[in-house]
């Protein structure tokens, strides 16, 4: 069935990336930072150096494997922050309405108007490079879609019988939001979150490429691309493998998001039952 394939392929790619990240110390052949050896600089891929070596003679394979840790940490953590912010703002705005809704709406529109990468760039410029600043910058700038979805879902769920019933049964506002509204909008939120993780991985690569994210010598896929920039014609493997890692991870997350959308869609869910 076509519906399942994107879910399976996406899930496999994402799982692979996570496993690689978790098992990096065992999978890597050498230390990604310390094991530089100018004797083997810029070796092309071979049995010895699977993905080749860079200008300092470090094993690209090992660096790509370790890079998964940084990319996934940034992707997952920053998207979690985004999801929490987006859901909290959107849910409360849709539920309470009034001036709070106006404020949240204004803020969301503002965020949508500024390209989030530009915004993250500005934050990075203030905070300086590094993992923590990356997490902050990317975690604060990509919640507007989640917020919109959460708000719209709340508005449509609010009039559902079970939400009314909960109110009649003496549920407080917070309990209604957590037990009645949140679980019923989780499907689209998870889908947006998965796709958002993909864009966070890309954003990390872009920021690191620009020298604002993870700085060399630490191996993030973006910083590796950045370093490989000058040797793209002479030693293309320096760019190809980190690029491929980004590509496969983002592709996996996008496929996973699409696959999840198909199974979490309330319409297809009611069809299954």
């Amino acid at each position: 069935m076509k519906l399942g394939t994107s879910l399976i392929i996406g899930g496999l790619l994402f799982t692979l990336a996570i496993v690689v990240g978790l098992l990096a110390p065992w999978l890597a052949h050498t230390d990604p930072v310390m094991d530089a050896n100018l004797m083997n600089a810029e070796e092309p891929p071979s049995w010895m150096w699977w993905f080749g070596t860079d200008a300092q003679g470090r094993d690209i394979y090992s660096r790509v494997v370790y890079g998964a840790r940084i990319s996934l940490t940034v992707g997952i953590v920053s998207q979690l922050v985004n999801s929490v912010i987006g859901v909290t703002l959107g849910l409360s705005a849709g539920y309470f309405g009034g001036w709070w809704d106006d404020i949240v709406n204004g803020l969301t529109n503002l965020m949508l108007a500024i390209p989030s990468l530009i915004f993250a760039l500005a934050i990075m410029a203030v905070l300086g490079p590094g993992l923590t600043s990356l997490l902050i910058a990317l975690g604060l700038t990509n919640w507007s879609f989640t917020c919109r979805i959460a708000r719209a879902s709340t508005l449509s769920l609010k009039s559902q019988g079970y939400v009314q019933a909960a109110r009649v049964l003496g549920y407080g506002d917070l309990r209604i939001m957590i037990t009645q509204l949140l679980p019923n909008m989780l499907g689209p939120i998870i889908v947006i979150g998965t796709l958002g993780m993909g864009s966070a991985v890309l954003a990390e690569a872009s920021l690191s490429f620009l020298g604002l994210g993870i700085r060399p010598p630490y191996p993030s896929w973006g910083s590796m691309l950045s370093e490989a920039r000058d040797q793209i014609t002479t030693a293309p493997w320096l760019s190809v493998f980190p690029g491929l890692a980004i590509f496969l991870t983002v592709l996996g997350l996008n496929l996973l998001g699409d696959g999840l959308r198909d199974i979490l869609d309330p319409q297809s869910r009611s069809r299954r039952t």
Partner: protein
Amino acid sequence: MTGPALIDVEDLRIDLNLGSSRVAAVEGVSFHIDRGETFGLVGESGCGKSITALALIGLLRRPLSVGAGAIRFEGREIQNLPAVEQRTLRGNRIAMIFQEPMTALNPVSPVGRQIAEMFVLHGGKSWRDANRLAVEALASVRVPAPERRVKDYPHQLSGGMRQRVMIAIALACGPDLLIADEPTTALDVTVQAEIIELMRNLCAARGTAVLMISHDLGLVANFCRRVAVMYAGRIVEQRSSDDIFRACSHPYTQGLVDSLPRLGSRARLGRSRLREIAGVVPAITNFPSGCRFNPRCAQATEVCRTTAPETTMLGADGLVRCHHHA
């Protein structure tokens, strides 16, 4: 009865705010329900039954609001209670079940959890105890194999089963008053009878008072000790159920009684065709002056068109709002 009634509604008016103008969707509604008593509210669709019930539990929301009158629960004015106290009243002392058992349950939560939540919320129980009580509650509404059923999601249950779950949720905390807003309208007839019987037994056993809301006079009169008939936002007649068929006074009530199918003498005499009440319910924004029933009333005279009738007491239990009451 000594002391205040369980719930006492006095001269309730519910306003519908339409931006610039304001209309009274419900007006001059008074009734009381004693502890353990069954009281019925009957009327056509749109006459204001549901919003009256919502007013009782303090849950009218814009554009509706209580415009005038008093709603006292055990002698205390509900509207003056702080929000927190209103909330502990709801679900705990006053519970409600609805017309649509299909939509009144959270689709993504197992029914057992939804019952248990009431024990946690109002009973201060731990989840562990609450889950055990939920199984008992499900057993008390005669759901077979309750220990398995608690894990079911609403979509796995039939309409009748869901309404049983709703009853279990509503009665979980042993409320003093159960408001049942058309609890069986969405169910088929045999299931209806079962649900009504179940409610009757459970509420009688626990001494729970019931406010039964329906457009089905037969059902309400059968279930309740006293019945109020509502038309276009006003109570037009209130009677004991025993009297309503024998001695109703208002032409609208008479119309409702005549439109009920019944077995026996009249059917055999060849008058099997049901009589309906001519005309339509007036729109809420366009209530006629005088008696609101006058355009559809065969007995209407000039005074009916100009002056709204006052209520007349009929014995201890009855009242009627008609210029021409018998």
